[in-house]
């Protein structure tokens, strides 16, 4: 069977040799990372540069980041199926693939990151309901199943697979249930995005990360949910734009970008406001109540107050302002710049909560500690990035990720 028989009718895709050339370096990166993961799993985590002080390193930081960026999957589904933002149908498939790769990749890295991955099932058998990590584990695994279910209809609509009548019927029946899966996905995502923030907010022994909150949830719980919802649409817009540049053709109509930018801008503005309030409360109340003056945390040259400014103003307020202004976001360059900045902001936020929390001394006589990941840590995460690119590339080539693509191409031909 020729590979072009698998490509959707009317879709223009690169010839197979060019496609193979595109995936070759990613396969190589994946192989290198797989080897690094094998070393860690078979010999131990001494292959990383983590240590007893730096118990969390690059992997946890990037896991938190990709899960935040992958939030576009649940939030776009929520906007489309529950709030009926019909224009987002143009990107929902792409968002689901991004979410699926982000979440499954993060799960794989987590499995390498723990010292006893074969005991992962203990969390289901001996769950500590007070631990945020328990909530994260339950919600992420359940949500990964939801994402896989959301991916199935896309897969069954492949040109060859849909020739099987029962597949088509199954896909149709599954499609009718999408609103249910969108709601379940939203609920699960709300809790695991929040619990990822709560992971650090509950650390009462780490006054830099500890936050007061509502009932059992620290403020970081809600800030993580909101920031993921704000940055998810930005990341969907950014990836769509990147795919358009690589494919050299428009894939969605301009109003799709506008909707994504508008929603992202509004939520980002709300997030920046709440983050500012939270930071002021922490500086003036939470940290002093725990016996620490907040300024002490910024006395280390690497992590001065600039990081606070960069996180809230430069990569928060500024992109929110650009995305909030219709005239600015309608200019594609500004919209993409703002989306990049918003993604950088959420990345920096996750960096601060993981890496900076680990680096700062808590004991008065202890010192600031630095950490640089080993090549195995970089390579393992490189493998996940490569895996994401490969899954996305194959999905783009053989499935219909952008339903408006054909319509736009026909309109261009006519004009």
């Amino acid at each position, binding site marked *: 069977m020729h590979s072009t028989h698998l490509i959707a009718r009317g879709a223009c895709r690169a010839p197979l040799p060019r496609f193979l050339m595109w995936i070759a370096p990613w396969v190589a990166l994946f192989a290198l990372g797989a080897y690094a993961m094998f070393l860690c799993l078979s010999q*131990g985590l001494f292959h990383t540069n983590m240590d007893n002080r730096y118990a969390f390193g690059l992997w946890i930081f990037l896991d938190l980041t990709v899960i935040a960026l992958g939030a576009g999957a649940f939030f776009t589904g929520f906007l489309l199926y529950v709030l009926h933002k019909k224009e987002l149908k143009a990107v929902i498939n792409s968002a689901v693939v991004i979410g699926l790769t982000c979440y499954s990749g993060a799960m794989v890295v987590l499995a390498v990151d723990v010292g006893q991955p074969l005991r992962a099932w203990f*969390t289901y058998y001996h769950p500590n309901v007070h631990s945020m990590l328990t909530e994260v584990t339950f919600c992420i695994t359940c949500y990964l199943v939801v994402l896989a279910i959301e991916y199935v209809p896309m897969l069954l609509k492949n040109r060859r697979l849909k020739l099987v009548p029962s597949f088509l019927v199954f896909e149709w029946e599954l499609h009718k249930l999408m609103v249910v899966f969108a709601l379940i996905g939203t609920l699960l995502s709300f809790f695991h995005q929040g619990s990822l923030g709560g992971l650090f907010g509950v650390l009462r022994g780490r006054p830099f990360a500890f936050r007061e909150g509502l009932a059992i949830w620290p403020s970081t719980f809600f800030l993580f949910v909101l920031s993921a919802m704000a940055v998810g649409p930005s990341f969907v817009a950014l990836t769509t734009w990147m795919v358009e540049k690589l494919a050299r053709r428009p894939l969605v109509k301009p109003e799709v970008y506008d909707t994504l930018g508008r929603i992202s801008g509004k939520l980002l503005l709300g997030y920046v406001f709440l983050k500012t309030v939270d930071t002021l409360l922490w500086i003036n109340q939470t940290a002093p109540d725990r016996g620490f*003056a907040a300024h002490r945390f910024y006395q280390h040259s690497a992590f001065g107050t600039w990081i606070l400014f960069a996180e809230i103003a430069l990569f928060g307020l500024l992109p929110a302002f650009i995305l909030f202004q219709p005239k600015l976001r309608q200019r594609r360059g500004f919209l993409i710049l703002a989306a990049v900045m918003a993604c950088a902001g959420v990345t920096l936020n996750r960096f601060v909560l993981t890496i900076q929390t680990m680096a700062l001394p808590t*004991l008065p006589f202890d010192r600031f500690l630095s950490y640089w990941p080993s090549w195995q840590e970089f390579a393992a995460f490189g493998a996940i990035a490569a895996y994401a690119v490969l899954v996305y590339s194959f999905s783009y080539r053989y499935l219909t990720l952008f339903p408006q693509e054909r319509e736009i191409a026909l309109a261009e031909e006519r004009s």
Partner: protein
Amino acid sequence: MTRTDKASPAAHYAMIIDLDRCEGCGDCVVACALENNVPPPNPKATPRTGLNWLRVFRLEAAGRDVFLPMPCMQCGEETPCQSVCPQKAVELDPATGIVGQIPERCLGCRYCMAACPYQARVFNWWDPQWPAGMEQTLNPNVSVRQRGTVEKCNFCHGRWHAAIEKAAAAGGRGPVAYTPACSEACPAQAITFGDLNNSEFAALTNKPESFRLLDSLGTGPKVFYKTASTAVRAAVTGAAKDTPHA
């Protein structure tokens, strides 16, 4: 890990470390390692990846070296490591007040290590290995831990277990008196171990020269320090650096 007899009155084991007596000889560290089957360090281990249930910090204060032995503080209030463990591998035993670690259940996620303000927890980055013949010296009352799990000081739980079994065999019930290896080994008698329910021992912790590390975090550590020198105390508690911390 621990047997909880609810009918028996509980103990609240605690430790008092006299900073004016400690000479930094490290006998406590060696005794701890031998008692608790802590393997010899891997040749590639660094001070940051080594396995020590008890570390001794060296500070300079009042014109002299101050040595600060630091075991697990056995936090008794809102124990930071216990609440975060996703699979109940950390337990605060109400019968003893000791925070136990169950290595057989540990996932190795290291969330407890991130949560501990005292960095009292260590991770098995390597497979534990003893030189040929040295495995004969292992303590049969303490299980060895495997690679990829977290471990920490448990106030010599093996000794507590042996003491309570001995008492039970003699028909006794309730709290028992025992001495952890570090306290027993200290040549300067800088480490005193006891039960906070014992008024005589509790009185020692209430003296003006007694204090706890990071007391303001509200985690209720059960390791107390004492020194007659205000300069030493300031250096150890950070009072000299930051007024709110005093």
